[in-house]
């Protein structure tokens, strides 16, 4: 099973060490830097990656964002999982094992 398939609401994702989120001054936007790839982050993507530190679960990230944006939790969780699976598919994510 790949990392992308394995992500659930209990997963604790973090960006791989070699992936960098930085502000692109020339174009005034947030980007994700990886080998031979530059992904432009939209506001949601940036918010998700700010929280994905390996300590917080996908469910918790979605709950925080749902509260902040006053949006339905199930819709947000669906979006969060979609973004994280996309990144995992490209090998940009690590899943930190549940400490329990």
């Amino acid at each position, binding site marked *: 099973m*790949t990392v992308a398939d394995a992500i659930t609401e209990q997963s604790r994702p973090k960006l791989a060490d070699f992936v960098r989120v930085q502000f692109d001054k*020339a*174009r005034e936007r947030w980007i994700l*830097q*990886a*080998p*031979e790839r*530059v992904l*432009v982050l939209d506001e949601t993507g940036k918010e998700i990656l700010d929280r994905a530190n390996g300590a917080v679960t996908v469910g918790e990230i979605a709950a925080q964002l749902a509260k902040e944006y006053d949006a339905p939790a199930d819709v947000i969780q669906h979006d969060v999982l979609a973004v994280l699976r996309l990144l995992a598919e490209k090998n940009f994510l690590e899943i930190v094992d549940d400490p329990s």
Partner: protein
Amino acid sequence: MTHLETPAERTTSGWQRPPVAMLAELTHRCPLQCPYCSNPITLSSRSDEMSTEEWVDVFRQAAALGVLQIHLSGGEPTARTDLPDLIVGARENGLYTNLITAGVLLTPDKVRTYKECGLDHLQLSIQDNEAANADHIANYKGGHAKKLAVAAWVREAGLPLTVNAVVHRQNLDHLEAIINLAADLGAHRLEIAHVQYYGWALRNRAALMPTADQVARANAVAATASDTYRGRMVIDYVVPDYYAQRPKRCMDGWGNQFFAITPRGLVLPCHAAETITGMTFSSLRDHKLDWIWHHDSAFQRFRGTDWMPEPCQSCEFRDRDLGGCRCQAFAIAGDAAATDPVCASSPHHDMLVAMAGDDASSGAPNYHHRR
């Protein structure tokens, strides 16, 4: 190449869109002698190479211009003893820093030092999965065995590894084994690149050109492997264009997102652009990078679609492939502004296909090694 999606813009004051990535050819020196080397036939000498200070100043200019990623290459970039300083210089300017190396000059200490200096990623070339053939291609005894050790040092240092395999008639039937080797070496990413026939490779085309059957089999192997390794190793496969019907979107468009810098500071829209004899390129020893990118005539020459002849100008694929490859048009049709001969609509297409077939059926390899 690195992709971004901003729409193109040309105004009367010059080209407006900033570049995304750059290739820094730090030196032409290299212990390997691969017959498809992308360096020019006439190599720059060590005494002509830009200094540490000149390079770091270029990195600063590049970052200010909007460059996000830098590929430190050569020749063999690790032949430069100031490489740690150059990595620091690139990182201090926020550039995502990739080292493209043949590996044979590395030690575990050097790899750790590069990592400590801020290197983001390392790309290691292999010539084949079989040592004897690999060393014959590179004309360097023991090179393949050394590369296997280097891959382990890279992973131990915590650096992400891309394996780059250039494929041609003399190794293409090993593609599955090459892919499995890259996975065994711990590669996050594998780049399989068919030889592009300019410079040294053009000189060696008869030894390197694959048969159409080989290419069809290889395409299938690559497609299957992409599925097999999904989520574990990303496979980027560059399809060989001599057997294609439509040209590749070469460099993502001439002067569109990318530039290369030669060891002595010439700025090129493509690392092979010097094969187009008669074109002149500006030097960082005479001009600022900002001016070259926005105004240099070599960069302006094939930007956008205005330069295109027919049948390209009225072609529905015009904006998709941006006219294909200018170096290939020059190499085959003798005119850098001609329709890319790979395109089925080019008057030179049948000649190209016949040439590829003739080359592919020629006998045993007799390499003109790069030197």
